[in-house]
């Protein structure tokens, strides 16, 4: 039961927007669609909503083919990235409009509108017009209109992207609580890995119109199926180093010649790509197991309480996420430490060969 997309393609002109989408969303599930811009996130949401028709394939709702059913006849609500409200209606009428059209009695509309508005903290603004509200309040109104309908399918297309940092944090926490109370299928798109992790649920990693990996969010984060998934699901991007396994040791560039770690046991002798997230690289040793490599500082970027240090190691660029402010002279050679059990290993085709095990996780 739920929503099923079966072999869905979306081709516009000669451009492939979506290809071979095979996706099942259970009732009550929360799904995050993660992908960079132009990955096809919005196209996928529009297909789910019924705003666009797929070029090939079918969309099934509880086993019923709804591919050709217009959006008006589906039970769906959508929140856009831009703040979309009816400018000529007050906040109250905006929220009430889907209920009015459904022919629900006035008293019930009133209680539901007020309840939803209270949930989103806009109950004191009901008489205003959307243009008299701040961006955050406008988006709250749009979200309230989507929630009040209690539709089977709730789609949110990067709803927090146009809000400032503070409002985003606030609304993200609230949305999480709201989603938990619903038994609708919630689909949420984002470009930010951190947001995806915070929302939990399931994740679909989308890239250039194709689904790269589907699964529980935390699991996909821990075991990205390919280098591309690891890249998309890390912010700042994951560091890659080419290396090879030879006679029970892994060799990565000039400084790292480590014995195979526990999770790397069983790797055949071959060339591999080793990946390590930038929060696992340090400029000071953090444990006895750490190995040291020497790299040249290219840039150090201070981002409030943390510093991103860009270095070059043996011709490969790495980014180190350092907690705290650290000024480093450009061109200086610094020691970089990494715990070898934090390495992801990908084979020559870019598929995951080994991921850090439970024991190593910090």
């Amino acid at each position: 039961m739920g929503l099923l997309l079966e072999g869905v393609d979306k081709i516009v002109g000669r451009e492939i927007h979506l290809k071979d989408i095979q996706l099942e969303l259970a009732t009550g599930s929360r799904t995050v669609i993660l992908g960079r811009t132009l990955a096809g996130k919005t196209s996928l949401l529009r297909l789910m909503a019924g705003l666009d028709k797929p070029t090939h394939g079918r969309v099934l709702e509880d086993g019923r083919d709804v591919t050709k059913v217009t959006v008006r006849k589906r039970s769906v609500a959508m929140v856009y990235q831009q703040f979309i409200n009816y400018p000529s209606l007050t906040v109250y009428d905006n929220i009430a409009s889907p209920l009015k059209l459904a022919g629900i009695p006035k008293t019930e509309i009133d209680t539901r509108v007020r309840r939803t508005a209270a949930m989103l903290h806009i109950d004191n603004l009901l008489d205003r017009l959307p243009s008299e509200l701040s961006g955050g309040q406008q988006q709250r109104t749009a979200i309230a209109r989507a929630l009040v309908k209690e539709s089977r399918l709730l789609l949110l297309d990067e709803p927090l992207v146009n809000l400032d940092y503070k409002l985003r944090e606030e609304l993200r926490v609230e949305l999480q609580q709201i989603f938990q109370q619903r038994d609708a299928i919630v689909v949420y798109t984002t470009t930010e890995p951190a947001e995806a992790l915070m929302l939990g649920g399931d994740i679909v990693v989308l890239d250039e119109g194709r689904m790269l990996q589907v699964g529980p969010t935390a699991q996909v984060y821990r075991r990205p199926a390919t280098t591309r998934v690891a890249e998309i699901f890390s912010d700042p991007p994951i560091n890659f180093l080419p290396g090879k396994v030879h006679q029970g040791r892994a060799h990565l560039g000039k400084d790292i010649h480590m014995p195979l770690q526990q999770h790397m046991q069983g790797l055949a002798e071959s060339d591999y790509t080793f990946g390590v997230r930038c929060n696992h690289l340090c400029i000071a040793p953090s444990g006895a197991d750490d190995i040291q490599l020497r790299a040249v500082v290219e840039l150090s970027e201070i981002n409030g309480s943390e510093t991103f240090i860009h270095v070059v190691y043996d011709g490969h660029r790495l980014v180190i996420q350092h907690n705290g402010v650290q000024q480093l002279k450009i061109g200086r050679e610094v020691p970089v430490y990494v715990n070898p059990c934090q390495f992801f290993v990908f084979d020559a085709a870019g598929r995951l060969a080994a991921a850090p095990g439970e024991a190593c996780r910090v």
Partner: protein
Amino acid sequence: MRVRKRTLALAAYFFLLVLPIYWMLNMSLRSNADILSTFSLYPVDITFNNYIKIFTDSGWYMGYVNAIIYVTINTVISLACALPAAYAFSRYRFLGDGQMFFWLLTNRMAPPAVFLLPYFQLYSTFNLIDTHIAVALAHCLFNVPLAVWILEGFMSGVPKEIDETAFIDGYSFPRFFITIFIPLIRAGVGVTAFFCFMFSWVELLFARTLTVTQAKPIVATMTRTISATGLDWGLLAANGILTIVPGALVIWFVRNHLAKGFALGRV
């Protein structure tokens, strides 16, 4: 110093603009004998006889009534055709949409005289000569393309997501269009109506050719007053002043949106 220069230049420009209108007002308040005999910068013996004649003689005041009737019909037809057309051009992509959109504008490039002869024959065949609807339809030739262009500009300024949200909420298309969409482009509709009104109100060639007596507009009536006794200067001037009034009134309502209208809604 610069400000004063600018003020002076503007004052001179304004003087030149207003002078003919003032002169017409001046003439409309004097009798013919007075106009032809003495030169005066302002009316000495003010008389309202010219205006009284217009408002009492049905040959004159019916000219205004006829013009208002066909201008209104034309504005309504133009808006009724242009609103859906502009929505289609603004929201949908279809084969040849760009070409068709441009073709609409080319209708305004031909001189009206080109269409005059075929129109006259066609309207005669259908017995439409000397009816209000004939002039109203003929003026659609210019006003519908213009209205489509202006409205398309205003409509494209409304995000498509509003339409989609309305459909998701369950609005039927007509209900969405009338209760949500048209209020959003209110200013555009007002400006378009003004442009339709203005072109239709001042147009002379079609209005004169397609009417005889029953639907004769004021501009045509004015051209037919030259008689053996000469021109009735005072009466013509009074007519001229009255012809300006409706335009001035309509401009007042859309004054804040006119610039956007002249840019065909694309600012």
